[in-house]
């Protein structure tokens, strides 16, 4: 038999199985464990242990991890010439946890569920991209299904899109692309025990409190090249306090040595500890989930309709104090571009309005004077009422302080956290200016840039993210052209150019991009971070 393994043995993927992994989280895995209702990037962390999707993220460290890999499908998808038709073939030997075979119809049904009003919350892309699916009410009201998804046989599934989308393989990583056996669908109750297609299945699930996952015996590495699935058992506890989670991971007594978290980063107040404790510093995974914070305002309204005013704002910003307000240089870095520093998204460095470390109030004042505001201006800046994210009072006051020096008086408007996004994303209620953040649904320039800057995405009725009301025909055309490109590297290159094209016009003031530091237990191995998720991957870690 195998000898006793000590924590110091190196990680070996072939011999990593065993043990129980503990997950210490603040909130439930997601508000809903229904694949139709999850809105995750790349399939999520815990959901990805239960739901296999047509494609998935490559489980690799760094930039390599930001690529798409086939999962249920044999490849990342076969596009037609203009990327409007995508065909997938399922692997052999795929089974649900109950042993029944996974078919293309199950995948189709899973997607159709996401259209049901009873199961809201999922990503909206399919709704807009599939031909004629705009008004599809879901399989409960319309069992005929979506015609734009064809399943010619049990292993083939074909998607017909209404416009080119070279990014489709990225989208196919979303949990909506997970198979759902129609016979087991219980509607909203399905999430109490969703049928697993992944390496684990649910043993018990107490919503908002705890979840226990055990091995799905109908899954094997033979049919899944991506997931290692090392622990035999995963026990998740929800409802913990972030400070307590980090403290438990730091201390690592008892079972906590085998613990990780999927939703708790180190906060600024906890960083000082790392300095004093080198051992601890080794147990911190550092990643960068692509995210940008910025000041948004409507470019069509005075005074922002004058580019000199917009430029003045860019010059006035003190990015050092803003970064500090966001947690300091370990948790954020200054942004002068809209795209975060991520190769796969096509990041290109530029700084059109160099404000230096602490802003250039003189330049800003001058620009304002040129624009006819020699006595300065007064603007209202909205922010979230709490510092849950980096769009709270801290950052807002940093902006206020910096702007003050440039003669820009900022009146702060605190909006309740729950309704913040709703308020700012509705042109009817949109404040004059607001602190906002944007993250990518997948590591490509498309989902990062299109909702914010595509002039045709301006939604007057609400759910609008083009807060700048930006509408540049050249940019729109570029977007259409890039959407046709199916080679990610080529597309990335173009997105970078579009970014600089946009930012020259100063439609918003980029503030900073965030990075994440996340602790894991002292017995946890193989906790690496990819540029896609910014956090370690539960399907790869081991506690043995």
């Amino acid at each position, binding site marked *: 038999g195998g000898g006793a393994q000590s924590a110091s043995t190196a990680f070996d993927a072939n011999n990593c199985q065993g043990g129980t992994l503990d997950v210490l989280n603040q909130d439930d895995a997601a508000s809903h464990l229904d694949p139709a209702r999850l809105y995750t990037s790349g399939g999520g962390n815990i959901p990805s242990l239960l739901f296999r999707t047509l494609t998935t993220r490559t489980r690799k460290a760094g930039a390599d991890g930001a690529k798409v890999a086939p999962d249920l499908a044999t490849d990342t998808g076969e596009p037609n010439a203009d990327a409007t038709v995508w065909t997938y073939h399922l692997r052999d030997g795929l089974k649900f946890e109950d042993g029944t075979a996974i078919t293309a119809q199950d995948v189709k049904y899973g997607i159709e569920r996401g259209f049901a009003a009873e199961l809201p919350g999922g990503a909206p892309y399919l709704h807009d991209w599939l031909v004629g699916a705009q008004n599809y009410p879901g399989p409960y009201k319309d069992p005929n299904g979506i015609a734009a998804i064809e399943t010619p046989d049990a292993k083939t599934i074909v998607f017909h899109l209404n416009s080119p989308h070279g990014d489709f393989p990225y989208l196919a990583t979303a949990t909506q692309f997970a198979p759902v056996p129609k016979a087991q669908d219980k509607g909203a109750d399905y999430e109490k025990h969703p049928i697993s297609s992944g390496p684990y299945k649910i043993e018990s699930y107490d919503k908002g409190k705890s979840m226990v996952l055990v091995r799905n015996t109908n899954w094997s590495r033979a049919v899944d090249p991506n997931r290692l699935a090392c622990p035999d058992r995963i026990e998740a506890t929800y409802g913990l306090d972030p*400070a307590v989670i980090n403290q438990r991971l730091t201390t690592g007594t008892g079972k906590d040595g085998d613990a990780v978290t999927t939703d708790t980063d180190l*906060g*600024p*107040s*906890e*960083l*000082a*500890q790392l*300095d004093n404790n080198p051992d601890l510093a080794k147990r911190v995974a550092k990643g960068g989930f692509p995210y940008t914070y910025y000041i948004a305002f409507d470019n069509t309204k005075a005074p922002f309709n004058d580019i000199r005013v917009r430029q003045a704002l860019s010059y006035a910003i*003190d990015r*050092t*104090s803003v*970064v*500090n*307000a966001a*947690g*300091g*240089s*370990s*948790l954020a870095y200054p942004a002068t571009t809209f795209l975060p520093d991520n190769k796969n998204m096509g990041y290109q460095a530029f700084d059109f309005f160099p404000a230096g470390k*602490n802003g250039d109030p003189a330049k800003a004042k001058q620009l304002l004077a040129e624009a006819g505001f020699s006595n300065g201006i007064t603007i209202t800046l909205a*922010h979230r*009422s*709490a*510092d849950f994210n980096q769009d709270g*009072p*801290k950052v*807002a*006051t*940093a902006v*206020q*302080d*910096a702007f*003050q020096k440039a003669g820009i008086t900022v009146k*702060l*408007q*605190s*909006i*309740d*956290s*729950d309704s913040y996004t709703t308020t700012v994303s509705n042109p009817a209620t949109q404040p004059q200016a607001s602190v906002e953040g944007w993250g990518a649904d997948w590591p490509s320039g498309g989902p990062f840039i299109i909702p914010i800057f595509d002039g045709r995405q301006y939604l007057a009725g609400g759910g609008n993210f083009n807060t700048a009301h930006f509408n540049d025909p050249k940019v729109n055309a570029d977007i259409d052209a890039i959407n046709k490109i199916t080679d990610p590297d080529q597309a990335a290159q173009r997105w970078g150019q579009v970014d600089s094209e946009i930012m020259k016009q100063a439609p918003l003031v980029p503030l900073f991009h965030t990075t994440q530091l996340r602790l894991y237990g002292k017995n946890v191995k193989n906790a690496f971070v990819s540029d896609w998720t910014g956090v370690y991957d539960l399907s790869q870690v081991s506690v043995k």
Partner: protein
Amino acid sequence: MTAPSEARPGFRVFAGRFRTDRAAVFGAVVAGLLVLLAVFAPVLTAIEGQDIASFHSDLVDSARGGVPLGPLGGISGQHWLGVEPQTGRDLFARIAQGAQISLLVAVCATVVQVFLGVTVGLAAGLGSKLVDTVLTRLADIALAFPVIIFSLALLTIVPDAFPRPLLLALVIGVLGWGGTARISRAQTLSLRTRDFVAAARLSGAGGFRIARREILPGLAAPVITYAALLLPTNVITEAALSFVGVGVRPPTSSWGQMLSTATTWFRSDVMYVLIPAVMVFLTVLSFTLVGEGVRVALDPRTTRLTRKAG
């Protein structure tokens, strides 16, 4: 007959008794200092040469999450109480200005709570069965009501121009009178069985007069004691309301808000937590001491500690 001392008792006697209670005088002095700090906040801050809103990126260690550079949270000649982590804003300025908001809001809210609570408690205790039932039920509702929901709804109703501290004091006061009401009612029920209430009734005194003259003095002890403790609770509640957006607007500070943002820092920057905590503590302490002094001074039966003085 000896020369009559015609001076009325009341305040003079009360003050005399209060003065002899050293703890109460200490409490009053501390409370006075806190009030002075609040009143002269702008002046003091100007003397220090700082303000509440200016960021000092150079005073915090950006790589380590923004902990203040230097010992004791960056205390120095320029920054008397050090600076705030991450932002580097001056803590003395924020504490001084926080005193204005916190004391104002907490004191006003407490006054509202006590006023409403005692009024309702008296009315319930003295009134008819129906009045009692209705008022006690009303108190139940006030008690059971989640403040947060109410304040969120308020956000939409109350115009932005409405002065925030006033709004805060009203919200806290109007929602928080239940406890005082219950206590007052209980005490009233017990006092109303005494013969002196019967005597007052015989003289034709109406409910109002009985409440004010006969019962109210008897409520003083529990209510004053309770109110002294409501005060710090209100300081904290103010922070919670600011959190949901009904409170003061940044960069305005309040102790409660400082305390709640400071909590996670208690290991990496103790001073940041300690300073507002000490302020709240001093407030609680001084107000309880004063409350206790007032309670004793109001109670003719408690024996004076200065017995050898006479």
